[in-house]
């Protein structure tokens, strides 16, 4: 049979265009905010997720990887003695002050690693990172920060010098795609240099990271270390990542704010679809009455309304998700990241279609209740 739904939908192109713009904007809004949330979650625990260690030893009460306090380096040697520990490494993570040659100052998070580290840090790194860490005063900063940390006239380049907490630093490498939730960049350096670049002091570190042997249960090693090392918390990487994400996303209210905005976008989209379908149904009510008088069943009529809503949803989804993916690609090299994994794209399709179906229920009920004799009143 002729697709009445399709014809009705495309009959008034201006109305269709305005409806598609409205719903597509909602799809864009919800996708971007969920994507933003995912990117924030990824950034908050990026150091933990990428380091590749099984256990993190830290000062008691640490709530986030960015907010650890220093502990004695002796914890490293004690942890290495744990049965089931394959290796252990110290890691400094501390905020510090970066001063550029022209006198401007920026805050940076110093990440101190053992040269030749077995940790996967910095992740997504450019070639030559191990050598860069061994060079005198060498620091590695992310590509995307070259303009912000460069001088007014040019971007930061290899060999450029800066002052970190009154100590000389030399840029020896650039990482790629390493971002933080706070947009304060991670500056990777050797553990020895990091002691100078931060206020933690010598003989101290922020974390001790432990890798367990393949056949040893991580939890058993964690309990062993926790039972023997005084004044430290010992968390699995998963738990510490969760704690960090919870702190930044919910402790600060940022996550709740993003989720609230996404929900708001969903509500706006629902109202848009609902209004569009309802006004379209009302404008065609006499026609639906005619079809009813001609013997079309309520089920067939509601199929027309639902199909129209789903087609509108699909069309708007295509536009909205296309814009969202384009925006995500456009912002990929900036500090504002939007993650659009394939599952989110698929989920948004389901959400859009479900929203359109739910939003057309009022219209379907209106058609259901339409008395066929109303056709003589027009």
């Amino acid at each position: 049979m002729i697709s009445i739904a399709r014809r009705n939908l495309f009959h008034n192109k201006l109305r269709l265009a305005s409806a598609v713009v409205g719903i597509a904007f909602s799809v864009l809004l919800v996708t971007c905010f969920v994507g933003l949330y995912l990117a924030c979650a990824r950034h908050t625990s990026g150091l933990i997720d990428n380091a590749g260690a099984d256990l993190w030893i830290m000062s008691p009460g640490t709530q986030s990887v960015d907010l650890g306090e220093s502990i004695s380096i002796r914890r490293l040697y004690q942890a290495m003695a744990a049965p089931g520990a394959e290796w252990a490494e110290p890691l400094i993570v501390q905020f510090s002050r970066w001063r550029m040659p022209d006198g401007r100052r920026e805050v940076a998070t110093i990440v101190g690693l053992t040269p030749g580290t077995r940790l996967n840090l910095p992740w997504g790194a450019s070639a030559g990172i191990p050598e860069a860490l061994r060079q005198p005063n060498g620091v590695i900063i992310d590509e995307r920060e070259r303009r912000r940390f460069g001088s007014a006239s040019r971007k930061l380049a290899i060999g450029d010098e800066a002052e970190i907490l009154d100590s000389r630093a030399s840029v020896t490498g650039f990482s790629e795609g390493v971002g933080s939730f706070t947009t304060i960049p991670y500056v990777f350096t050797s553990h020895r240099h990091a002691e100078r670049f931060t206020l933690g002091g010598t003989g101290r570190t922020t974390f001790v990271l432990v890798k367990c042997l393949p056949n040893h249960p991580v939890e058993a090693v964690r309990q062993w270390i926790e039972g023997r090392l005084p004044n430290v918390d010992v968390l699995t990487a998963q738990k510490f990542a969760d704690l960090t994400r919870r702190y930044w996303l919910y402790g600060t209210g940022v996550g709740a704010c993003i989720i609230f905005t996404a929900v708001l976008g969903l509500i706006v989209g629902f109202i848009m679809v609902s209004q569009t379908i309802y006004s379209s149904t009302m404008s065609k009510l006499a026609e639906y009455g005619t079809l009813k008088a001609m013997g079309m069943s309520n089920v067939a009529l509601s199929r027309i309304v639902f199909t129209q809503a789903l087609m509108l949803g699909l069309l708007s989804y295509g536009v909205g998700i296309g814009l969202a993916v384009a925006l995500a690609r456009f912002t990929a090299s900036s500090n504002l990241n939007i993650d659009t994994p394939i599952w989110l794209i698929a989920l948004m399709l389901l959400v859009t279609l479900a929203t359109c179906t739910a939003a057309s229920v009022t219209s379907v009920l209106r058609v259901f209740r339409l008395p066929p004799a109303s056709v003589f009143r027009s």
Partner: protein
Amino acid sequence: MIQANPLRPIARLRGISHCFGRPPHRLEVLRDVELSIVAGEMTLIMGPSGSGKTTLLSIMGLLIRPTHGTVELHGCDLTEWSESKLPAARRTHVSFIFQAFNLLSALTASENVQVALGLQGVDGQDAARGADDLLARVGLGDRAGHKPSQLSCGQQQRVAIARALASPAPLLLADEPTGNLDSSNANDVVSLLQSLARQEGRAVVVVTHDPRLEKFADRIICLEDGRVVTDRRGIS
């Protein structure tokens, strides 16, 4: 071609009364109407506004249930049929023509007819060919691809007639079919309806205020205050 016995009633209404609203605002629009509509005749139902013409048409077309009385179509009492069965009964027994044409504005003339054919189970190429044939019969073979907004009122009403013809229903009910037409188009449309009754054997019932239509009618029924006051043969 409808194969109907001209003497056999297509529709029989017995003791039909109908009220709208509830006491104390109850309005009785039809009172004890007895009527038989036979095949091959064009029947006019006339009367002043509010006399119950359209309500009678709605009851005959299974669009509303009478408060009292029974409606028989082809000898079958449909008064107590459930709501879910009535659409199928309408598809089988009745077709409609409306004063405002009520074509689907997003569809072409051909597609409007194809929708009606689709309800009869005719689809695809068969429906397209059937629609073209029906439009040719009402003289609109060259307007099949036009949308209602691209057609004159007379042409739109002829599309509506072609759509009604898509149903093999023996009872064709028309509500003021010439109400929006000039006299030339009105004559064409009524002649067409008359030929459907005479040549195809359909029972055509036309509700109208227009006295010019009397000359085409085989039978003229006048309603007043919900009662049949005259039921006479036409002059055609």
